[in-house]
């Protein structure tokens, strides 16, 4: 049996049941969530992270599109209040973009500032972050939202390298990774290379959610599809 983590997205776990897994996100796997702009990928990531935090499961959150303040505000819109998890250090944040607004983010034990244009520094912060989170629990979630800004500030090949190093780190530490990406911000070769690096992919196109899993013991690729909507409570997957 493949161990899974509750996704926190209503309907998702039911959708992804198979004879090998209970439904949810397979533990210790890496998942790419992608699709056209504005289809709920960030919301899905935040929803998943919050589900873990509720269970006091640590989360390493790498934010490259939005600064910490914005992330916090976005989550507040869905009533996912993260302040207490920041305070008790269950949530570990690496903010790779606030430097661009001129605001100086004060680094703390679990809030680190870096720059999307300095991938070496981002990896250092990721290294420190994975250790910190691993010490709390070797069941942890890691979110990267999203690859877009990395592609805007670095050459495509460099982003692929960063991604590989990042996935390696998360896998080594036994974490479960969820990374967001907007379809169409790079050329199709790079996009295909990207997708091939992950165990599972989730595509949100505004109407349909399509999950493909090629993880571990699966002999062939498993896929699931359904419709979904975005409500006040986040992403909701409808029944088939």
């Amino acid at each position, binding site marked *: 049996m493949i161990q899974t983590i509750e996704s926190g997205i209503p309907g998702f776990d039911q959708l992804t049941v198979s004879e090998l897994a209970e439904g949810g996100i397979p533990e210790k796997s890496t998942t790419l969530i992608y699709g056209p702009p504005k289809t709920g990928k960030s919301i899905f990531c935040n929803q998943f992270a919050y589900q873990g935090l509720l269970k006091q499961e640590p989360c390493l959150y790498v934010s490259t599109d939005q600064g910490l303040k914005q992330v916090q505000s976005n989550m507040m819109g869905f009533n996912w209040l993260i302040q207490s998890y920041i305070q008790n250090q269950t949530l570990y944040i690496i903010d790779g973009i606030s430097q661009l607004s001129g605001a100086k983010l004060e680094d703390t034990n679990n809030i680190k500032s870096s720059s999307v244009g*300095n991938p*070496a520094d981002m*990896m*250092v912060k990721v*290294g*420190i972050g994975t250790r910190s989170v691993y010490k709390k629990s070797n069941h942890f979630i890691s979110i990267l939202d999203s690859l877009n800004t990395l592609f805007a500030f670095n*050459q495509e090949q460099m982003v692929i390298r960063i991604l590989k190093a990042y996935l390696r780190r998360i896998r080594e*530490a*036994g974490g479960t990774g969820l990374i967001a990406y907007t379809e169409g911000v790079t050329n199709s070769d790079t996009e295909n290379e990207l997708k091939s690096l992950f165990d599972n992919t989730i595509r949100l196109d505004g109407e349909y959610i399509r999950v493909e899993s090629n993880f571990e013991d699966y002999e062939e690729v498993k896929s699931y599809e359904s419709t979904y909507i975005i409500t006040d409570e986040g992403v909701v997957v409808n029944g088939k």
Partner: protein
Amino acid sequence: MKKTHIPKLDEFLGGGIPAGSSILFCAVPGVECEAFGYQILNGVIEDGYNGFIFTNVTEPHNIIYEFNRYGWDLNKYLKEGKAFFVDGSSNFIGIPPMGKYSIDELSQIEEVVLKAIDDVSDGVGVINNISTLIDYLEDDKIIEIINKWNECARVNNTILVYIFTKWDYKPELVDAVKSTVDSVVSLTSIEERVIIGQGFMVTSASWLHPKNSMVLYFVLQPGGVKIYIPKILVTGPYNAGKSSFVELISEESVSVDRMALEKFPTTIAMDIGHVDHNGFVADIFGTPGQERFDLMLDVLAKEAVGAFILVDSSAPQTFGRAKEMINKTQSEAIPKIIVANKQDLPGAMSPEKIREAMKLDKDIPIIPTIVSENNGVEMALDTLLKILYGD
């Protein structure tokens, strides 16, 4: 010779970096690297020379901020004209460049840096970093440029410090980059699932045979690069042979009574030793096996980079306790090996049987020993060191 002002590094380099030479700090992703460049610049300027920083990863004002965090005042040097920036980052993101020179287009990089090298004759230039250039310029072009820069540095007696992150590049490219410079310092990580330590080692130097020792370091804010002598734990259930083991592997060891150590408030006996084996140096802490000292084990495990866990191979009733101690060190993610001692006693279990009985991960090595006869001890030491430092 210019001192690097990095602890131990000057010693390894035979005093420092000869004027006009180039040095490459080559780090695997995740290991702190920039601080080395900045610390050298700061030190060389303090020694009375001039310097520049070429940056294409972050804007100058962020670097000034970083310097402040280390406790160094870059602004002062900028104002006094002792240091300047070659800003290859700001224009890239559309903010006004800062510094004596700025780069608008990639094609300018080579020329502008040559000018900068010329400007700081007998000083130091930091290039942060090479990795970012590789994708923008072709591989051959990069090698060509670095060679030109090094040539210019030789003529001007300027030291060039290159920062390089070793991403997933083709080995040929990495080798080519390494061979363009006079000396290479490899920065690597000590990992057990996560990075628990960082080490540097001089892997080549054109002016001497470098000492091939790996030194562990932290980057402190404030402070900069600081080295430390790692702690290695020797732990395990009561009477597994820990004290003897510590004695054997140490140059000199001493059994201390708690009075000598302020850290631990209860009366305990502890074995402390110091290892110097094949250029690897560490302090050894042998912990008592009784459960009431487990708190101390937690504390020590936080600061240790590795652990020997001794078990009496003939006493399977103690395996449960050994497993507990493994878990304590496991949670701090430090590399460990099991030393299956007392192999000479009747009923002693073989390593494979012990692994089965303890249900141990196949990644954890189990080395059979007879400590009382100094049998297997060196192999145990080598095995752990190999995990820590690689080959």
